[in-house]
């Protein structure tokens, strides 16, 4: 029997103390470093699980389970439990990629979709990669108009505009998209990277006329440049990257460059400094559709709304300007990146293209950054891809198909969640009653139920760190039954009187280990190879439930019950 004395002694053991100390440290880390709460939580669980499977001592096993349960409760409290739109309400549109892509390309695609959605004013859109061939686009609201907007963003290309000195020099329609491509390294002529493209006859004519005599001027490359808009930028965003490679940019020069970059005949985007207009607010929209592009953290938002602007929120990173300046030719100084307004790059015009002779083929090249040759090559490739994507109107590198969209009204989602939680409680009660009837001994039944609850807490904490959707919830319910199963195997084995308990435990674990292995193996292809996101949550929770049980809770249960039989 487990006595109070034994618990006290167990707690004094060095390994047990170390485990709890580690757990407290992990809790502290989660509380302090909120941004990395989830990775810290998962890593700590893994470390404890590994420690438990190596130390293989009863007290350590029980302590390990306790530590993980406390850690899980802590994570639920601090990191929270995230629910999919099935429960929180909203719209989800899966985007299926025709082929699987590398992590880099996936990152590019996610950021392209985000940028393009933001250009559409869809700032609440969440875009996240799922595996290597699928992307989820989620909206917290479920209005059909928003859904259509997102679908438009995904299925149509963006509008590319190249602006020189306030005039459109080149448009996306002028470029033969089939000809946009990276230049092989042997033709680079000193540059680190280059992208070439061919323009139509009309495009060549317009370009050569517009850029006539403007050597060294920046070509502002916009993707989905907003029209009928103003932009309100804070001093911080303006000066964030003021120290560029070519030298320091002063505040007045920065503002001048910002204004220049947004000049376009008849469609200038006026630039205001947040701090300047905060005290003396006197700007008014041209009409009721005029957009005000502003940082999501700005305190001016209510005032802008009041004044009748359509407020478009951007993140601070998108609001920040990057510059390229040079001492030798101030005419080429420019804002190089300003994502909030769709300005993505601003290469300088070479003298040869500004002499009035129309040409069909053009080339944009540049230098790469990085300390090692490999880093420079990677940077060059990244820049080439970026530029290609801009010229193609933000087209995604692989062909996409829109998956089946799911739309859940928020109150219904909340109701589903409530009922599902009730379902879990009922399932626990029903199973508890069943084992109580089957075994009759409180010393067996109570630990069984406690372990099931512990498993449930851990499972919810881990899955909730990512997202619990409908299929994951079904998996959690199933995991309750699966979890109790292995404990039944252990109990039945221990109830036999033939051999010593240790031997019987070993036999029980042989069975459990084998069956967990085959069950996991059966589900593994679904988890790893299918990319069927709709049901991956289910596969994850069943597999996770089985593994948790095998490595953590069943050894602990065995340790507890074994003591009861001694």
């Amino acid at each position, binding site marked *: 029997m487990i006595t109070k004395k034994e618990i006290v002694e167990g707690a004094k053991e060095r390994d047990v103390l170390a485990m709890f100390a580690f757990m407290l440290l992990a809790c502290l880390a989660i509380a302090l470093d909120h941004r990395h709460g989830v990775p810290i939580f998962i890593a700590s669980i893994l470390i404890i699980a590994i420690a438990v*499977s190596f130390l293989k001592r009863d007290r350590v096993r029980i302590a390990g389970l306790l530590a993980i349960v406390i850690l899980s409760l802590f994570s639920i409290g601090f990191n929270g439990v995230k629910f999919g739109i099935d429960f929180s309400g909203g719209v989800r549109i899966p985007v299926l990629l025709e082929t699987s892509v590398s992590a880099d390309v996936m990152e590019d695609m996610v950021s392209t979709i985000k940028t393009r959605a933001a250009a559409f004013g869809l700032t609440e859109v969440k875009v996240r990669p799922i595996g290597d061939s699928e992307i989820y686009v989620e909206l917290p609201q479920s209005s*059909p108009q928003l859904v259509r907007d997102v679908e438009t963003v995904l299925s149509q290309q963006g509008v590319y505009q190249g602006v020189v000195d306030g005039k459109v020099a080149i448009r996306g*329609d002028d470029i*033969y*998209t*089939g*000809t946009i491509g990276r230049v092989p390294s042997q033709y680079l002529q000193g540059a680190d990277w280059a992208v070439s493209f*061919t323009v*139509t*006859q009309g495009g060549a004519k317009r370009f050569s006329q517009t850029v006539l005599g403007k050597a060294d001027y920046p070509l502002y490359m916009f993707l989905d440049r907003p029209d009928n808009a103003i932009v309100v930028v804070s001093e911080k965003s303006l000066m964030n990257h003021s120290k560029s490679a070519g030298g320091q940019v002063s505040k007045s020069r920065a503002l001048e460059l910002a204004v220049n970059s947004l000049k376009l005949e008849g469609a200038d985007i006026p630039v205001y400094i947040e701090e300047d207009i905060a005290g003396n607010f006197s700007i008014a929209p041209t009409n009721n559709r005029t957009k005000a592009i502003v940082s999501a953290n700005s305190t001016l938002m209510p005032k802008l709304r009041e004044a009748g602007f359509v407020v478009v929120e951007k993140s601070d990173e998108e609001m920040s300007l990057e510059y390229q300046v040079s001492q030798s030719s101030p005419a080429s100084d420019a804002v190089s990146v300003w994502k909030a307004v769709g300005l993505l790059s601003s290469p300088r015009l070479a003298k040869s293209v500004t002499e009035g002779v129309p040409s069909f083929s053009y080339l944009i090249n540049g230098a790469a950054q990085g300390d090692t040759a490999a880093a420079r090559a990677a940077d060059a490739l990244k820049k080439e891809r970026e530029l290609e994507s801009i010229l193609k109107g933000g087209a995604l590198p692989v*062909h996409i*198909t829109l998956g*089946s*969209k*799911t*739309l859940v*009204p928020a109150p*219904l989602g909340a*109701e589903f969640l409530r*009922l599902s939680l009730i*379902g879990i409680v*009922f*399932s626990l009660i*029903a199973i508890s009653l*069943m*084992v109580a*009837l*089957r075994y*009759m001994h409180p010393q067996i039944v109570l630990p069984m139920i406690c372990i099931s609850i512990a498993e449930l807490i851990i499972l919810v904490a881990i899955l909730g760190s990512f997202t619990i959707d*409908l*299929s994951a919830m*079904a998996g959690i*319910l*199933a995991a*309750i*039954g699966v979890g*109790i*199963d292995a404990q039944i*195997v252990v109990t*039945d084995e221990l109830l*036999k009187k*033939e051999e010593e308990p240790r031997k019987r435990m070993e*036999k029980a*674990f*042989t*069975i459990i*280990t084998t069956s967990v*292995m*085959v069950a*996991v193996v059966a*589900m*593994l292809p679904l988890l790893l190879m*299918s990319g*069927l996101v*709709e*049901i991956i949550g*289910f*596969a994850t929770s069943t597999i996770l439930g*089985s593994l948790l049980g095998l*490595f953590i809770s069943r050894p602990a249960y065995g340790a507890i019950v074994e003591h009861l039989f001694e």
Partner: protein
Amino acid sequence: MAIDLPNIYNGNYRLLMAVPIALVLLSLIFIPGVELGVDFKGGTMVTMQANQSVDEGALRAALTDAGFEVSSVKSLANPAGYEIEVEIERDGNLTRAEQLKTDFFSKIDEVSRLESDVMATNSSPDAVSKYMEARKSVDGMADGLFEIAGMPGNASGYPGTNELKATAGVVYRKILDENSERLTQTLSRNVQYESASFNQVSASLSDKFVERVVAVVIYSIIIVSIAVFLIFRTLVPSLAVLIGAACDLVIALGAMGLLGIPLTLASFAALLMLVGFSLDTDVLLTMRLIKRKEGTARERAYEAMKTGTTMSMALLLSFSCLFILAMVTHINTYFEISAVALVGLVGDLIATWMLNAPIVLSYMEKKGDAGKEEKPFLSSIFSG
């Protein structure tokens, strides 16, 4: 022990096998009747939330009049009022449009390159003829799209490929929009719904689902078989375990056909899980039978059955909760998973204890019940 079952293995246990064999044969009759869900056959599933029920027949007639091929209309009570579910078959025109669009966009870049060649070579006859030929084929695809959209368009009338590309994109979008517009209008005229969710599975998407599911099935079969053979390292027990799992799947599929549970991604996942459950009890039985020596083989089989049925009871209970939850909420994912799990677990009880057990028992008794206890390699890694 509160629950005690009689030892069914005393006497001629081989007769037990008649039950699962009959059940499997019966199931084979019903398997062709398994309905494919929207995920696999394509089409549109609209789920509406409304305050009042609707006349299913009238809604069906209205949709048919609007040119939709309706496969089912259901009106069910749920916690927030009524849920109205409409399933519409894959639209032939949409499938054709999607195909044309995919073909068009995969070729258009090549054509645009050829067009630029024409310019670059100052209209050399060779470049021009190549361009014209390629252009003709994409023009055909674009004309197909225009025709489906009901637009008087002539693709060859577009001077450059860029204009044609832009128009084709817009036209395809228009085809999709018009279709969903027509559907939304028909629905809103007939149902006073508060919210509606459209689950549209295009032809290429459902093909992709089928392709992936088939791959998953093949991989699962292969690695499960390898795992089982590695664990038991003897032919008959390994085969018995695999046969048990296969029978369970056949019975589950048969029940799906009989009870009208559609095969969707969710029920597919449940079937895979069933393989795991089925192996779980099969492994318990086979381990206890061939790797132990206490008592007679029949006694061990009986003891294993007691443990195994308790385990199945626990699973049946938790999936019953999910099933009840599905009945209350009408969440299809819950229903499909729990219904498949319930029928499969019953099937597993029958397949394991009436088919698998007799096979292994008779193998043991033929061998002379002298199985040596050997420790499988896996347990030495994980158990204490």
